């Protein structure tokens, strides 16, 4: 007969099993709370070290480029004449600042350096904020060319159209009041308060994704500038196939749908423009106003009589500040405009050449501003 040894494992009392499970559960939950809190606080600390890199990447990226550029250098004798361009993506794509600097240097016989500080979605108020920041940061150009985008002047659109892109998170706490005075209603973002320390991962989430996981970004557009932007701040738009142009035009017509019916220029956007001009005057900077090219069809979308009021309105403002107006809306053929108001690479080349030849050279030569940067 075979004997079989039967071994019975000792029964673990159920209260001990319950105790182990409870301990495991407690450790898991408390550890999780600690790690989550630590992560958020860590992100908050990292953001506070470089707030603009996360809060306003558009401005930050251009500012970083400007640091290494002659226009960003301190205003000292011997510095090339510094010309700065402010505007939206229209100017971003249109003005080849490197070529501007080269041509003006050749035409005027004195070193001229130009930088394109245009930011996508920047209207008058965004430009006003950017210029003030640059001046506070020690950047003082000798002349500024300021874009006037008729879309952002649409007075029948309230709040102003650029509100769509001027997210309060982009602003510094001390800029909020000024922006409200200029007609853009902004509430203080949660990130400016305790949420910026304790829930920084949530408050800056879009910017964190944009920077570290762009494939997961919920935005259809980039927040900062990309590697395609050259060291003078200009980006060359690739040539657009003919069959794609109608789609892009239709997209833009839809995007700016609120601006077309009953279009009339004016409203709170003028306050922003005026602020830019006043800032220039106070800092001793020569300003010029620029209306960038638009395609034939695009120009027809603005309702009359509003469309015809743009030039007189801008002219009146410019005269008050002694600034010339460059109305380039009808300068280029439609084949050089990608989507109604952004220029192709070839369009930017043609536009830049004409801008320098016909407007900037006579302006800077005739105003006597070009003599090593001395007014």
């Amino acid at each position, binding site marked *: 007969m075979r004997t079989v040894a039967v071994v019975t494992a000792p029964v673990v009392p159920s209260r001990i099993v*319950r105790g182990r*499970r*409870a*301990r*495991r*559960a*407690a*450790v*898991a*939950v*408390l*550890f*999780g*709370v*600690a*790690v*989550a809190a630590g*992560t*958020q606080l860590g992100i908050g600390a990292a953001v506070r070290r470089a707030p603009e890199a996360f809060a306003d990447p558009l401005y930050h990226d251009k500012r970083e480029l400007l640091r290494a550029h002659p226009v960003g250098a301190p205003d000292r004798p011997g510095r090339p004449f510094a010309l700065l361009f402010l505007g939206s993506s229209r100017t971003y794509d249109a003005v080849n600042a490197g070529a501007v600097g080269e041509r003006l240097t050749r035409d005027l016989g004195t070193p001229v350096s130009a930088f394109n500080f245009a930011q996508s979605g920047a209207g008058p108020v965004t430009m006003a904020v950017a210029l003030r920041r640059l001046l506070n940061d020690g950047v003082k150009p000798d002349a500024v060319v300021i874009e006037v985008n008729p879309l952002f002047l649409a007075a029948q659109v309230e709040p102003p159209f650029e509100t769509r892109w001027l997210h309060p998170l982009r602003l510094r706490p001390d800029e909020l009041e000024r922006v409200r005075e200029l007609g853009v209603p902004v509430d203080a973002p949660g990130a400016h308060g305790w949420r910026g320390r304790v*829930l920084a*991962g*949530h408050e800056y*989430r*879009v910017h*964190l*994704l944009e920077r570290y996981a762009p*494939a*997961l*970004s*919920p*935005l*259809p557009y980039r927040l900062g500038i990309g590697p395609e932007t050259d060291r003078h701040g200009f980006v060359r738009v690739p040539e657009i196939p003919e069959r794609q142009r109608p*789609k892009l035009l*239709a*997209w833009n017509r*839809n995007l700016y749908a609120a601006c077309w019916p009953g279009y009339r220029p004016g409203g709170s956007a003028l306050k922003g423009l005026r602020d830019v001009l006043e800032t220039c005057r106070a800092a001793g900077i020569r300003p010029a106003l620029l209306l960038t090219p638009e395609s034939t069809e695009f120009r027809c979308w603005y309702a009359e009589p509003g469309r015809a009021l743009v030039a007189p309105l801008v002219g009146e403002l410019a005269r008050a500040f002694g600034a010339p107006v460059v109305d380039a809306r009808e300068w280029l053929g439609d084949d050089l405009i990608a989507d109604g108001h952004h220029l192709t690479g070839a369009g930017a080349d043609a536009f830049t050449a004409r801008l320098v030849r016909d407007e900037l050279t006579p302006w800077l030569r005739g105003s006597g501003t070009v003599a090593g940067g001395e007014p």
Partner: protein
Amino acid sequence: YTSIGMNLSILCYFKYRGFFLNELYDGMRLLNMDPGYTKVNPLEVFIPFGISFYTFEAISYAVDVYKRKIAPETSLPRFLLFILFFPHLVAGPIVRAGDFLTQTRRPKRWNWVRVQVGVQLFLVGAFKKMAIADRMALFCDPVFKDPDAYNSVAVWFAVLAYALRIYCDFSGYSDMAVGAAHLLGYKLINNFNMPYLATNVSDFWRRWHISLSSWLRDYVFIPLGGSRGSRWLNYRNLLITMTLGGLWHGAAWGYILWGLAHGALLVGHKQFKDYCDGKPRLTAFLETAFGTGLRILVTFFCVSMCWVLFQPELGKAVAIFEKLFHLQRGLTVPLSNRSLWYTVAFLFACQWLVRSGVWAKIYPRVPAPVLGVGYAVCLCAALVLAPDSGTTFIYFQF
């Protein structure tokens, strides 16, 4: 009957009065008659939060007491707790009195295991809502708002995104509700069981909004006769039950047609099942891995098509169907579709982990600190992935 009548009257007054009055108005105008009143503006109708849910709970209580399944509750505070318990008040799950009231009598003690389960469920729900549902809304909302502007491919993506959105939105809310209830010492019914892995529409309704489908089965379908009686009676009962289920969701033809469409699908499934009964080779093929995958895809496709109807504006649904089945040009997808495919893959991987039993094997062996890190990652991911413009829970409107 008095109790049921009163509950339904209150629900009908707040939720359906406007709809029926407006339909009557349109009908009378069509017949060149003067209705004698002006149309009700749907936006001005006040609907108490969660009325559809707690009305059904009150009805189920009355019926269960009448049928002596449960004893009547004599404590008003306990009854009010049953009806107004905040985790399930606004959007379910629809709780049965028998399940809940017994829990109110048990003393509550701090229990770390329960807290862990509650926290886990809450975090998973928050992740589904913030990181998935709200992101899917970025794909589908612009397209559904103006389908004529978009091309057919964009509309197909939007339909897929909407199917994911409504699942993650509603199941996310349910998970958060169940998790919150666990933290307070109450166990609520799980409302979803991987519905998009259903192999047929019948199976889908055993996995989707389980508390509603079981309520409709017990208090509408079975009293109508259920599956007893002839085949045609069964079909009639299915159609009536599902149509009422659609009407429960909202006072609009879109929701009613959605319910009716699901009823028709259930009828169709029954007929197909009867057809397969006499075909063993076909049945064997459908049981293979390929056949099962095919059934899951077909079910998902049918359910997604029904979701197109699931909105208050029927005209928009028609426009969407036109775009889906008649190739048309227009704007492309509002966002890069990489995000959409990552989401599909992630959801599929998670559901496979659970369904295959891999998660059940791994979970007990994971060290507690690693679990804790997992919770932190889930929370931080939800906070980071939530898009700029969050949306309210879809089922709050019901």
